[in-house]
């Protein structure tokens, strides 16, 4: 059982208009096997939370703590956070020209496992993950995210989630830009990863439709850089009916 604990997290970003505070004291605790949905309007700081936990250099932490089983995540380099068990499925995965998916995945798996996976077993693992997400085998020979459709990028993110087996996954608007079929396939991948590895999930979304496939244990409403309301799955239904108006105007 692992615990990811966020306490009083404050984050700023440099803009042309000067330093802007985006996160204004976020508190959140996630345990293994739990699914937490973070919902909120655009611009509320949801993605900033995701990237700050992963260690993107654009964001400056000005207060608070993030710990994983007591270890100080904020002191770790980006790769150390991944090695500690954190995974960020990005909303806009980055193209890496000239680097094949196959080479990328094997390099990442080698880094995370501390040794190169045995070739035969690895080929089977990759094949299984690709089949689960209904991806064509030729996908492995393509360059990372280069020329991928929106749906292919998201499948590729979830394929990494299944192969790299983190303790906690932050899914940053994984549902955006997916049609119904792709949404179902990607969601099933997340659920598989959760069941296989007792994964804890922080699911960031603007819409409720992904929650039909990935049932949250907890729902947190995010507005103006902090959590403003918490509840169970029923809170998502309320948001579905009423939208975010009451939180934004507050």
């Amino acid at each position, binding site marked *: 059982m692992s615990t990811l604990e966020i306490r009083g997290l404050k984050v700023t970003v440099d803009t042309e208009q000067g330093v802007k505070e985006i996160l204004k004291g976020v508190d959140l605790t996630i345990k293994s096997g739990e699914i937490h949905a973070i919902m909120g309007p655009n611009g509320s700081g949801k993605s900033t939370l995701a990237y700050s936990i992963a260690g993107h250099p654009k964001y400056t932490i000005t207060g608070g703590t993030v710990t994983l089983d007591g270890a100080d995540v904020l002191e770790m380099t980006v790769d150390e956070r991944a090695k500690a068990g954190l995974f960020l499925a990005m909303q806009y995965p980055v193209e890496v020209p000239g680097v094949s998916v196959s080479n990328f995945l094997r*390099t990442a798996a080698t*880094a995370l496992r501390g040794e190169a996976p045995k070739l035969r077993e690895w080929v089977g693992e990759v094949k299984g993950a690709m089949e689960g997400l209904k991806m064509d085998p030729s996908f492995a020979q393509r360059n990372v995210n280069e020329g991928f459709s929106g749906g292919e990028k998201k499948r590729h993110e979830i394929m990494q989630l299944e192969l790299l087996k983190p303790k906690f996954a932050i899914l940053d608007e994984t549902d955006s830009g997916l049609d119904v079929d792709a949404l179902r396939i990607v969601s099933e991948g997340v659920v598989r990863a959760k069941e296989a590895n007792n994964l804890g999930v922080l699911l960031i979304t603007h819409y409720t439709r992904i929650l039909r496939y990935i049932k949250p244990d907890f729902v947190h409403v995010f507005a103006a850089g902090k959590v403003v309301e918490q509840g169970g799955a029923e809170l998502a239904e309320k948001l579905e009916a009423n939208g975010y108006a009451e939180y934004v105007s507050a």
Partner: protein
Amino acid sequence: MTTLASNILENHTPTGREEAWRFTPLKRLAGLHDGSATPDDRKSLAINGATATGVSFTRGTITAASPSEDAIVNRIRNHTSEGAILAIDKNTVVSEPIFLNRTTWGLDSAELSRVQIRLGEHAKATVILENTGDTHLAEDLEMVLAPGSDLTFISLQEWESKSVYAATHNAIIDRDASLKTITVTVGGDLVRLLPKVEFIGSGASADLQGVYFATAGQFFEHRMHVDHAVPHAKSNVNYKGALAGDKAHTVWIGDVYIRAAAEGTDTYELNRNLILTDGARADSVPNLEIETGEIVGAGHASTTGRFDDEQLFYLMSRGIQESDARRLVVRGFFNEVISLIGNEEIQERLMARIDNELEKAGK
């Protein structure tokens, strides 16, 4: 005289003020440009392995296929009319690559070398020139492609760190013939390479691919000149460079000249540079001069950028440590061109050298 024609050189000793010499550090040319180098007759170029039927490698008198106004080429031609001749007979298709390499070296004198590669009608071959060792070498290399012939010319500048190489690789391409070059420059103190294409028959094509990687103190210049003088010829240029370390300096010039007679021309050139550290400098100048509007297409693009931090973040967020992530991105950047070589052993050797240079640059 057109702007681009002025890039072709006067027959005199360059001063550094000429357009074609303005980037080149003349002091580091080992006297190859001004006649102060001491020439010796070392005949360094050799063929590696047996020659196939229809292929000959000999030394003899060379008649220049094309006049030159390049100061160094003219010094070479005034010095000697003898050189190495690789000839592939007409209708000969050579299935295995022909390897040319260097067998003698020296930094206390200079070599003025002439080379001619001749393909007969409908001949087809791949030639791999492996440039290694310590040298001061000025080279006038001509490729003469008869109608319908097909040459892939791969030149690998893997010189030792003190070497100076000033060369023209000039292709004269006749009707329906096709040239593909892959130029790799990863070694030497100074490399000044002038790949040139002269189309003399319609329907001909040239595809010039290249990569270079300069580290601290190295100067690598690649100066293309593609002359579309006949109708319906096609050219494509794609050079990619990376730089790391203090005073690493690369120059890429892409001159494409579409003359009035060259209707139906299709040309595109691209140069991309990746600057990995402070203190490095990449110059990139595409030039396109068009004298007819009756063309299929003509375009160019040039980009010079820093390392993409988003790529680095993405890879590191998957557990890959920074040095490995950088290596992966740089390998990926070069892979597009290097993978075209089609020889695993050479590709791995070049990638290993690039890894090694990256490591030396501390990145």
